[in-house]
């Protein structure tokens, strides 16, 4: 059974194949009728145990653009609040006959468990602070569109790496595709043993920006404990916030990315978020195409 759970250890050829497929689907999305019958008759069940708007809608849009049907689940008011175990919830929804699960869960590993219990193709839409593989792919696609390739590209990720599944998937995708990744954060927002990762690490943003092709800002996630890890938002902004002045020190071709939702005025100044270097809306658009590619990869031709 094939699943799409993590970008760790994915070979370069597979990532490139998915990006090529996503490029094709971008063409579909530009058509007057942006829909193909590739997954007609398939049903995709969205199990979003953690609240999500953008990722759930993006997957929904992707499935429907491939003519699949979707079923959706949200945790509030569901059997989960009545104490049902994850396994029981999985098997109950499985009995309704979906062909694939798209899973988001606040706990690491939940999509793996669902994949094992259900035995149907399972896509990870974000587990804990572990992986968010379609985000990694869409970010890679966005950079490939802009720069042609990621080989040798200097990418700087700034902020809460420790609690970020986006960072873990991005680092896997970017390094596999040949980019040079630098992490910038205070030690408290870096994972333990980060010195063993295939990245450079710094606590100082300013000297790095002039040598950065793409700066990627991570959300300060107070809901994941990020708020305990530095003294105050204002101190964080002073040291790591991408102000207009800092953005001006990027090379002329330098771009700015963010996975959203943005904390405007914290990790990114509004004028930068809305400015010409920002690829934020391109990322969102690419997300639909990437998710189409992954769904098609798992369910097409089955």
């Amino acid at each position, binding site marked *: 059974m094939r699943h799409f759970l993590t970008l760790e250890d994915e070979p370069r050829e597979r990532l490139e194949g998915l990006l090529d497929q996503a490029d094709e689907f971008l063409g579909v999305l530009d058509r007057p009728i942006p829909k193909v019958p590739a997954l007609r008759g398939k049903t995709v069940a969205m199990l979003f145990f953690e609240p999500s708007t953008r990722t759930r809608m993006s997957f929904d849009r992707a499935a429907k653009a491939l003519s699949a049907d979707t079923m959706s689940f949200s945790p509030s008011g569901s059997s989960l609040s009545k104490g049902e175990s994850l*396994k029981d919830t999985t098997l109950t929804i499985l009995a309704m006959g979906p062909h694939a699960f798209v899973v988001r869960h606040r706990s690491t590993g939940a999509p793996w468990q669902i994949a094992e219990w259900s035995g149907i193709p399972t896509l990870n839409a974000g587990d804990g602070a572990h992986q968010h593989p379609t985000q990694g792919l869409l970010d890679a696609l966005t950079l490939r569109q802009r720069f042609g390739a990621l080989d040798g590209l200097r990418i700087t990720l700034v902020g809460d790496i420790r609690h970020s599944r986006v960072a873990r998937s991005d680092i896997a995708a970017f390094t596999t595709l040949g980019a040079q990744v630098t992490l910038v954060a205070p030690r408290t927002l870096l994972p333990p043993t980060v010195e063993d990762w295939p990245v450079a690490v710094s606590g100082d943003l300013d000297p790095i920006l002039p040598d950065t092709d793409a700066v990627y800002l991570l959300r300060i996630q107070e809901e994941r404990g990020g708020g305990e890890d530095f003294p105050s938002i204002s101190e964080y902004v002073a040291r790591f916030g991408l102000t207009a002045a800092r953005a001006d020190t990027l090379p002329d071709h330098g771009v700015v990315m963010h996975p959203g939702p943005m904390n405007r005025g914290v990790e990114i100044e509004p004028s930068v978020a809305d400015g010409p270097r920002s690829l934020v809306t391109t990322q969102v658009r690419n997300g639909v195409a990437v998710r189409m590619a992954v769904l098609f990869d798992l369910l097409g031709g089955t």
Partner: protein
Amino acid sequence: METLVLKGGLVIGPGGPVAADVAIEGDVIAAVGPDLTGERVIDCDGAWVGPGFVDVHVHLREPGQEWKEDIGTGSAAAAAGGFTAIVAMPNTEPATDSGHVARHVLERGKAIGLVDVLVAGAISMGRGGKKLAHLDDLWHIGVRMFTDDGDTVADAGLLRRAMEYVGERGGVIAQHAEDPGLARGGHMHEGSVSARLGMAGLPSVAEEAIVARDLRLVRLTGCRYHVQHVSTRGTVDLVRQAKDAGLPVTAEVAPHHLAFDHSLVLEMDSVAKMYPPLRTPEDVEAVAAALADGTIDFVATDHAPHSANEKEVPFEEAPRGVIGLETSAAVLNSVVGLDPVAFFHRMSVAPSAFIGARDHGAWPVVGGPANLVAFHPDRRWTVRPPFTSRSANTPWLGHDLAGRVVVTVYRGRPTHVAPEEAP
């Protein structure tokens, strides 16, 4: 009087194994020698016959969580694992912080009669870490070991008072060492695997900082102190230094910490979740070496049953702990491979001396107590359900282990006979 004969085994004494039969009459060993006969004979060919195992760290879950285990199923699981005495941990509901809860456990254990069930008392009321438990009340019904196991006594002032109060009578304070601030929110060992998985970790220093602090209190108070489930190389070093300095310190290790490291968590199965967590391969090596050289005194299972539905949830939401009674001896034999004298020392003689269990931990001699186990070190088996325990949360599921309990004899009576030897 009916005579029970354990036939053809290697009787283990301090001098090593001797091929001999063991005849048991009543609750004592009647004869040790060749060609003994009796009304009931159990084939122990090639098995080590030694003192029944003793486990000073068992969660029997009664009272309060009987859907996981109770004193009956826990006693039976202990017998199946070769144990003749176990110590029930006080994290029951209500906590064993006063005599009447301890009395319930003791009386139930006696009524079931498969092993001697001893009781550890809580250090603090409700294991809340604020106020001393009813230590005298517990003492008077025989409790000698005090711990808030599952939680750490973080308040050094409270711990000092407990050490002074218990220490003057020769009682022992046992600590589940985990600094709550350093460990806060953690689900697994903090290291390369937690970093990869994005899970909050319990760093080794959370254990070591508490042990280091506590050892200064031992020096101050002179109280006997026991480190529960040592999991890090640094803790091993601290225990070794304390022993070298002559402090009254003992330590235990859980079987899973002798065998598995934190990479097991990558399998995304909550049977890899326990506190202290599975650590690095270097830590596994260090605790195994420390058990072999005696720095760590003995094995204790931290048998922690949880029902299947409680474990069928994501790792971070799962309760902590694994069962161990039925696999402990085989794990020790499979992964550390001690000679039989050291093996029985770590499984029976040392923990029995630690807890002061009468009639346990005695090398088999004529006239001695018939609390015995015949353990075949070379017989292999696959760990699979059903278990005698009410729960099945074990990381050993599907694994092959070497070493099989052939028969357990408690007060002269077989309490477990391996299915292949049963009539």
